[in-house]
């Protein structure tokens, strides 16, 4: 089977800092790959190369076995890559619907943005993802951390992604909502999406992922099937930067 995504030998430096030091990763359809590592290990930077937020210095990205150039977020969206950023990347002054459709607004026949239709669609998807969400007509700055996170999740899920990048998607969520995100990930996996999941919680990662990759100081320590290792093994990789 060809992988959905192959990232080969990716490198990226900021000034003198090697944020990504020749890392290779792959992802298969219907698979969840966890990315673990200390703060500053390079997890966010790595997935940002795939989402078009950063341009890698060297390396290659293949989708369905075909080399692709991703130089900006539009390129990534065109490849059906959707991202939930760690910072959420929401325009605080706009409402949920405007954020959900930002950059791909629904328009009327005359070419004007169709706020009513976008709100209706947003209500539809939120009813599925977060039935307690009712604040459709206020700027997202007026929402709680969890509500904002659910807007970011809805945006990533709405547009029929094939590849989903989730950078700490549960950081602002309580236990109940975290469980809901877990169920969502399982459902998307059944729909054959490939998911990169960055998380701090080793326990969650072991539960939700098929494989885990551990990074340290911009380098890939290793990638393991979760069935082959224990949480302690992974912890060892994170701390020591060595395979068990």
């Amino acid at each position, binding site marked *: 089977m060809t992988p959905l995504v192959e990232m080969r030998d990716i490198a990226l430096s900021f000034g003198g800092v090697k944020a990504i030091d020749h890392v290779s990763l792959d992802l298969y359809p219907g698979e969840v790959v966890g990315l673990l590592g200390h703060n500053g290990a390079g997890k966010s930077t790595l997935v940002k190369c795939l*989402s078009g*937020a950063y341009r890698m210095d060297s390396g290659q990205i293949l989708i369905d076995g075909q080399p692709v150039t991703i130089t*900006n*977020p*539009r390129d990534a*969206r065109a490849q059906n890559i959707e*991202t939930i*950023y760690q*910072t*959420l*990347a*929401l*325009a*605080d*002054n*706009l409402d949920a619907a*405007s*954020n959900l459709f*930002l*950059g*791909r*607004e629904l*328009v009327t026949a005359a*070419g*004007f*943005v169709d706020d*009513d*239709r976008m*709100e*209706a669609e947003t209500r539809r998807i939120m009813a599925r993802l*977060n039935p*307690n*969400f*009712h*604040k459709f007509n206020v*700027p997202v*700055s*007026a929402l*709680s951390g*969890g*509500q904002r996170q*659910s807007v970011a999740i809805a945006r990533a899920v709405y547009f029929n992604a094939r590849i989903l990048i989730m950078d700490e998607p549960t950081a602002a*969520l*309580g236990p*109940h*909502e975290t469980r809901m995100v877990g169920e969502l990930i399982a459902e998307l996996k059944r729909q054959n999406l490939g998911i990169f999941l960055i998380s701090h919680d080793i326990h969650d990662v072991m539960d939700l992922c098929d494989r885990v990759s551990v990074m340290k100081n911009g380098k890939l320590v290793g990638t393991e099937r979760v069935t082959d290792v224990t949480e302690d093994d992974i912890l060892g990789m994170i701390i020591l930067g060595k395979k068990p």
Partner: protein
Amino acid sequence: MTDTATGGTTRKSLTGTLQLDTRLLGMIGAFVAICLVFHLMTGQRFLTPRNIFTLTIQTASVAIMATGMVFVIVTRHIDLSVGSLLAVCSAVMALVQVWVMPQLLGLGIGHPATAPLAIVAGLVVGTAVGAFNGWLIGYLTIPSFIVTLGGLLVWRNVAWYLTSGQTLGPLDPNFQLFGGINGTIGVTASWVVGALAVAVSLWFMATARQKKAGHGFAVKPLWAEGVMMAIVAGLILGFVAILNAYQVPVARLERIFAARGETLPEGYTEGYGLPISVLVLIAIAVAMTVVARRTRFGRYVFATGGNPEAAALSGINTKLLTVKIFALMGALCALSAVVASARAANHANDIGTLDELRVIAAAVIGGTALSGGVGTIYGAILGALIMQSLQSGMAMVGVESPFQNIVVGSVLVLAVFIDILYRKRSGALK
């Protein structure tokens, strides 16, 4: 994700039911208060058709540019060069009218193509200079403050150089129609315009309501919709009635009739009606509001202002967006130059001097936040009107010029302070 149900449980306030912007109400309240105070202090000369007519004409130029400044400030930029850019556009348009058309092309004075060509030339120059500013800011990442501070000096003196510092005039008679009192559409046409405006506004309100209801969203109660419609219709028609009530002086009418070879009939009167410059402002206000709220471009302006990084991550080309915003600002400077120079009937060197400050102040008093992401077109226009009312009112009361500027400057600072308090209370600012 657990939020208590909003609405329904508490009785809504009247402004809530009418879905009125409380900040807008505050501004209108301040404006009305200013007008009433001056009305009393001037022996009831402030709120007369004549003075209101003059106020709207005086406001037009700054208000036109203020609508563009909203987009500039919303995206966390500033444009200090608008007054100078206005001068360049005015100089170019004046050159077309007094030199290119009559002399260079030998078409004489008052050729029908002169005014349109002059305006096109002004628009091209304004848009090009604005786009150039936007390119320096967006692509070369030079701060807008610096680019336009430089532009303030550069363009003011380019205008001076173009005209060798001379006053150019008189401008084309057709062109002068954009200046205010010399170009009004008369009473009947004003009523027609007013009636059309009412019809279109009510139609838009009705279809918007229908569309919302069609999606099953909550709409305001029918009576509230009716009240809003009555207010809108009343404001539009009231405005037309006031401007129509300003009568053309008898001496002037006599001259008009004499020019036609007729004599003025006994007891004949005529109102000025809506000035073309004010119609231009209204058209721009409507167009800019539609752009801000109903187009992708407008959505991206506000998104970029709210969170530039998020906008970029959503695939918005924020560099190109910056170019477009400043190009639009430049085009509005050109239109403003049409109104300002037509009103003066000539191009003078100092045209638009200090306008950058008035325009920025109008946008800011109108609720545009320098921190980005927040601002409205109607707010900026109301801001321009408040500033002009203060200035004119003080002049009528006999306040000396330095004191006028002291007051206007203080009001700007006070308005922003009140705005900050308001936003803190309403939770928009933390």
